């Protein structure tokens, strides 16, 4: 059975309508992952030297025991952002004589295949061999490897469990992230406890009592079983979900009425965001990003230069444009034909996008005004980046939207609908992140920081002023690709 599933998944990959693009993305990801593994390998190989430098005068074994748990906390945080859920579409198999155990087991087991599960070994095993095995013998070394294995598996399934839960309710993701951030702050900022000590408490004792390795093992098995049970119970969650329909009421946004058709289209898009799970989580992310500044701004060391503020300011006022915009037009894939045949000028359609971006970014800018606490300069840079977002980033996003013909099915509940959220999307947004730095960098190097900011702001402002020309260009560009885009959206 497992073999059949694997074959089906391979077929699904190779026979997808956009195989070429998928392969290209996979190759880029592959190179990226390889680089990451090489970094981990060299770090792992020189871990004893690194620890000596980082904790001078301390026994490196104690230091090593201290950092393991810290690593795994950050591992969990990054897993929650980047690790992709295994994607077998279960529906076609549910009514067939396929054991539910086989399906759930397959989904649970294949998630082991992930870069995240290799890195800890590359990072820690060289040290365990070089130092622990030499100092405390092979038995203890094996206990360490076993513990790393156990916690890796535990983390793997914990992250997936949270992600699956978060698919049903976006708040769970925010809460889980919040808890992890609090755990970190509790140590590094408030110094209530020390994760290092807790880590040493376990791994230190592991040296004298290798049998403790059973603990992470049990945790791993327990977490796997929890995942397995959850999957098994929820294999028909989709239908259960649609049954408990509550009363839906019609809404209006009177302030958008004055914009005519453009306003109507923007109102529809606001409803799209609020009434569908996928775009809904995009907007929740934007809310979370409003706190991004707190991480950087209270570190004086980071504030000599404007770079962090430029970057963070762009994110805080523009994360919605980036996060929601990267799937642009795909959100409307399900009714794109309807938009094309109805009495809607594409010009108005684009204006509605700009209107929506402007509304949300303005709101984000207003909400970030309290950062003025860190100085007026912060506020000014935020405003500059707000202009940049409205002028430049919106246009970049819409330019790429004309080149995107991947369908997103909104009508499918978020449960078991695991298309596309993961590391790959961040790759697409790369040009968005680099351009402002490229503009600002030369001025900053020549010590014209203010001029650099002025140029960023002016660029944004000019692009805003010539918006109608840009819209016409985008419209003409769209008409060249219209059939391809519509065709792609029609392919379920």
């Amino acid at each position, binding site marked *: 059975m497992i073999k059949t599933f694997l074959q089906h998944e391979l077929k699904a990959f190779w026979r997808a309508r956009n195989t070429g693009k998928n392969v290209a993305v996979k190759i880029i990801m592959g190179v990226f992952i390889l680089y990451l593994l090489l970094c981990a390998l060299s770090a792992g190989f020189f871990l004893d030297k690194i620890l000596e430098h980082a904790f001078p005068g301390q026994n490196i074994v104690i230091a090593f025991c201290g950092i393991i748990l810290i690593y795994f906390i950050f591992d969990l945080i990054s897993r929650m952002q980047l690790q992709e859920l295994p994607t077998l579409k279960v529906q076609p198999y549910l009514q067939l004589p396929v054991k539910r155990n086989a399906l759930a087991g397959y989904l649970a087991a294949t998630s082991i295949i992930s870069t995240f599960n290799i890195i800890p070994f590359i990072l820690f095993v060289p040290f365990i061999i070089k130092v622990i095995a030499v100092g405390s013998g092979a038995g203890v070394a094996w206990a360490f490897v076993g513990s790393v294995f156990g916690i890796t598996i535990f983390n793997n399934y914990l992250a997936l469990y949270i992600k699956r839960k978060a698919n049903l309710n976006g708040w769970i993701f925010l809460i889980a992230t919040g808890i992890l951030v609090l755990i970190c702050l509790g140590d590094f900022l408030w110094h209530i406890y020390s994760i290092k000590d807790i880590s040493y408490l376990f791994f230190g004792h592991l040296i004298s009592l290798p049998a403790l390795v059973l603990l992470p093992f049990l945790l791993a098995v327990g977490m796997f079983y929890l995942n397995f049970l959850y999957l098994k119970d929820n294999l028909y969650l989709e239908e259960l979900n*649609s049954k408990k*329909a*509550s*009363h*839906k*009421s*019609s*809404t209006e946004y009177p302030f958008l009425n004055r914009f005519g*058709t453009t306003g*109507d289209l923007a109102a*529809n898009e606001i*409803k*799209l965001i609020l*009434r*569908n799970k996928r775009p809904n989580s995009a907007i929740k992310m934007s809310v979370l990003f409003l706190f991004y500044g707190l991480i950087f701004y209270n570190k004086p060391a980071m504030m000599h230069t404007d770079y962090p503020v430029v970057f963070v300011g762009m994110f805080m006022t523009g994360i919605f444009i980036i996060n929601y915009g990267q799937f642009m037009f795909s959100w409307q894939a*399900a*009714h*794109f*034909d*309807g938009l*094309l*045949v*109805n*009495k*809607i*000028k594409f010009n108005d359609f684009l204006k509605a996008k700009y209107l929506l971006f402007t509304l949300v970014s303005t709101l984000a800018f207003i909400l970030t005004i309290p950062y003025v606490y860190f100085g007026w300069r912060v506020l000014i840079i935020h405003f500059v980046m707000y202009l940049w977002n409205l002028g430049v980033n919106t246009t970049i996003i819409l330019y790429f939207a004309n080149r995107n013909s991947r369908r997103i099915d*909104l*009508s499918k509940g978020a449960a078991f609908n695991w298309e596309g959220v993961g590391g790959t999307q961040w790759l697409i947004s790369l040009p968005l992140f680099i351009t402002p730095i490229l503009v600002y960098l030369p001025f900053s190097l020549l010590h014209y920081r203010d001029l650099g900011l002025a140029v960023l702001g002016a660029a944004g402002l000019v692009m805003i002023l010539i918006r109608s020309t840009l819209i016409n260009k985008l419209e003409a560009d769209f*008409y060249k690709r219209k*059939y391809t885009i*519509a*065709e792609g959206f*029609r*392919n*379920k």
Partner: protein
Amino acid sequence: MITISNLKKIYNNVLVVNVPQLEIAKGESVGLVGNNGAGKTTLFRMILDLIRPESGEVISNGEAVAGHENWKNYTASYLDEGFLIDYLTPEEYFYFIGGLHQQTQAHVDDFLSTLTDFFNGEILKKGKYIRDLSKGNQSKVGIASCLLQKPELLMLDEPFANIDPSTQIRLKNMLKSINKQHGVTTLISSHDLSHITDVCDRILLMEKGRIIKDIATNSSTLAELEDYFAVGQSVISSLQIDEEENH
């Protein structure tokens, strides 16, 4: 109203639509019949400028549909659920479509009140998004939104599918009435031969992308069509997969 010349569409080296010449006059009611894969939906989509033909063009009211948008002002169409914005309530959707044609909400409400029978209490004020409606009810929303636009040209793809018999009969009467009394040009495809011959004055029969028969409906048309399709049953030896309807 519509002039089609040399229209061809190729999918995977197969000619799925090949219409050298077709003229549909203003006020005609035209029915399109043909087995799956005959090219009905593809033809509709080309008339609506949703897919690019390999060659040829569609002229609507003297202007090519490709590259122009004037036809949207007087053309209303419903081919499939892809035409509906499914996260809106039916009311919101009707207001939106009405708004595109400069109709106020009161206008739209007025119009909808004439469709009470057609909706059969299943559409309005049910507190559901369009996506939560059954396929048949979604189809009703699509058809109603077309009528709301007061079009000069109405195009419906298989409007009788998925809806209950009472509504089918009501729909037939509505289609006849807007054609006969308001002079709306209607272009409808269907697999239901008795309905289509009842509603339409002219029947186009498609086979493998070609229009092989162009009949003015009379009392023997239904029998003639049933004859054709019955013969087709025994002749078809290889399974055909329909590009459009099998996605």
